[in-house]
Structures are given as structure tokens and as C-alpha cells.
């Protein structure tokens, strides 16, 4: 963990990975789209509409994953003061917000034909909306200071405080009566989803994750370069 905290070493490792993750992301997403649209069966209840799941569910997973990563990075930034941890938390926020928005929009598109409504205020939907607000609040707070260092620290504390929402989102469907159905994949017995449908779902999840990693590396790299430019300008 600490070994990667050195920006130069990070770039030496991340730079060669980047092309692989970008190509991998593209390939996995295209493959998932192919399987999802052409080579997977319609659901016994939902018919063709079930294909929205192949985007909705992986996006929702990424929304939670990105926030968890952000909170972990924020924690290690506050404890060990690694500048790289702060950079990755800040880099993850807009990507996570984007995935949350995708999950919310595809959820509405899925809800309209299946449930008969675009939106309901049940515990799952509301808590995901709060997650979206938390992402926006974090980004506003980090950029709200004239001193960027100060923004990083305050944002890190907010990210940690907001983490309380993540388990609430995860378990909301089990704890309360919601219109949203419970999880299909993370059940203790076999997943309640047929293999032919699991393939595009997991492919898309892998694709999204690789996409996330690629954008994360790119964003960190940009910030590191910006920092270097600033320090060069200061010394000259």
C-alpha cells in the first residue's frame, strides 16, 4: 500500500497498465452489449425489458464500489497523508457520480414498463439518490476552498461521514418493504439468475470496472502533471 504512495512509482506501474485496461474495457463492454442484446434469452416474466438490467445493475455496483474506494482513499489520506490517496479519492468522485446517474436513469427506464412507474420513494431508490447528492456535495466541497490542501482534507472527512450510506443502500431491500427487489447475485445459495443472463451481466461489470480503472489512472495522471506544472511555474 505505502509503496504505491509515491507518485513517480505509481506512474511507472500505472502507465503501462493503461492501454490494457482501456482496450479490455472496450472489448468487455462491446462483448457484453452483444450478448446482452443479441445472444441472451428474454426473461420468463419481464420479456425483452430485462436487458436493461445488463447496464443498470453493473452501474449500481460501480456507484457503490467507487464510493467505497473514495472512502478508503480518504481514510488513508487522513491517516498517512499520502497525496496520492487524496488524488485517487478526488479522481473517483465524478466517475462514481456518473455511474450513479446511469443507475438512476436506467432504473427509471426499467421501472416504467415493469413496475408501472418511473420513480417511487422507497428506501432503496431514496438512499441511492442520497448517494448521488453525496458525490455532488463532495465535489463541491473539495473545490470550494482557495487552498486546495484544505479542500482535500475537508472532502476526505465528508467522504468518510457519508460512507454510512453505503451499507444502508446495500441492505435497504432486506431491511424494509421496498418496491425494489432484493439482490440476485450476492445470495448465499446459488444466484437467482440464469447462466445465459449472468454472462452479459458479469461481462458488463468487468467492462465497467476496467473503464473505471482507466479513467481513474488518466485523471490521477492529469492531476500529477498539473501539480508539476504549478511547481515549475513557482520555481521560475
Amino acid at each position, binding site marked *: 500500500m505505502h509503496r504505491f504512495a509515491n507518485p513517480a512509482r505509481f506512474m511507472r506501474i500505472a502507465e503501462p497498465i493503461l492501454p490494457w485496461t482501456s482496450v479490455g474495457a472496450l472489448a468487455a463492454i462491446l462483448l457484453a452489449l452483444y450478448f446482452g442484446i443479441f445472444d441472451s*434469452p*428474454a*426473461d*420468463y*416474466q*419481464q*420479456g425483452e*425489458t*430485462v436487458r436493461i*438490467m445488463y447496464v443498470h445493475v453493473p452501474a449500481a455496483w460501480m456507484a457503490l464500489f467507487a464510493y467505497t474506494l473514495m472512502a478508503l482513499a480518504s481514510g488513508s489520506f487522513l491517516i498517512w497523508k499520502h497525496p496520492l490517496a487524496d488524488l485517487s479519492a478526488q479522481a473517483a468522485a465524478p466517475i462514481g457520480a456518473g455511474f450513479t446517474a446511469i443507475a438512476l436513469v436506467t432504473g427509471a427506464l426499467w421501472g416504467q*414498463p*415493469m*413496475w*408501472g*412507474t418511473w420513480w*417511487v*420513494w*422507497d*428506501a432503496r431508490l431514496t438512499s441511492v439518490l442520497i448517494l448521488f447528492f453525496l458525490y455532488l456535495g463532495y465535489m463541491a466541497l473539495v473545490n470550494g476552498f482557495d487552498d486546495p490542501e484544505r479542500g482535500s482534507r475537508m472532502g476526505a472527512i465528508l467522504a468518510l461521514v457519508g460512507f454510512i450510506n453505503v451499507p444502508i443502500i446495500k441492505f435497504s431491500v432486506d*431491511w*424494509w*418493504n*421496498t*418496491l425494489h*427487489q*432484493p*439482490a*440476485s447475485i450476492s*445470495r448465499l445459495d446459488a444466484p*437467482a*439468475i*440464469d447462466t*445465459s*443472463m449472468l454472462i452479459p451481466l458479469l461481462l458488463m461489470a468487468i467492462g465497467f470496472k476496467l473503464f473505471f480503472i482507466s479513467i481513474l489512472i488518466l485523471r490521477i495522471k492529469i492531476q500529477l502533471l498539473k501539480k508539476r506544472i504549478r511547481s515549475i511555474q513557482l520555481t521560475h
Partner: protein
Amino acid sequence: MTPKRRRLTMVGLGLLMIAAATALALNAFEDTLVFFYSPTDLIDTKTNPKKQIRVGGLVEEKSLLKSNDGLSVSFTITDLDNSLPVIFKGALPDLFREGQGVVAEGYLVGGLFQAKHVLAKHDENYMPKEVADSLKKSGKWKGGNKQ
């Protein structure tokens, strides 16, 4: 008090409060923040017929009836213990069928639920039709609905 002892007392008090809060929350967990009530919930409580509520459960098998003019439907919502008759005028969502989960929004008037909106609740099982059929045939069907 020395600073160290004071810090210990503070941490102790904080943990005590968190424990009490957890106990309170767990105690209250059962019946709050429900998006809908089950027919059983509605038996014991008196409800205001002018207040909109939501009832959720499964649509009972062979309970769906269309009226003669074809505009309104009636069906029964059951939680497998108790059931509640519902009438509804309007378009049902695609996923509405007997044996499937449903949430109805409307008014409970004298034991009859007059629904203003009907939302379908789908379960966490996803599979192609052939698999569902063969599972049912072989008796391995675990899904909550038997249609």
C-alpha cells in the same frame, strides 16, 4: 481528573451511547419505513378511509376478474396468511399477473381496497422461459410465485 482518565470516560460514554442507540434502532426496526403494508398489518389497525395507503403482497391465484364493461378489474392481494379484495379502474402494468408481487395504492373503505394506482413488484429471479418451465416440471421451482 487526569487528561487520560477524562479521555477514557469520554470514549466509554460515547460507546455506551452508541450501544443504546443500536438497541433502540433494532427495537424499532420491525415496523417503520415500510413502503407498503401487508394485508395482515391492516387487520389490527384501524385506518382512515380518506387517507391514501399502500398495500403489498401477491395477487392470489384465480382471483383476477374483469368487469363486464372491461374498464375495471378486481383481484385479491394475499400475504399467504390473510388477503384483501381490491378493485381498480385503469391500466395494469405489464408485469401484473396472478401469483406475482404487487403494490396497490389507494383507499381502504370497509374491507374493500379501492386502488388508484397499481405497481408491479418483480422478484429477484431472472431466467429464460424454457428454464422456468423445466424447473417447474421437475419440481425444483423455488420462486415465490407459481403462475
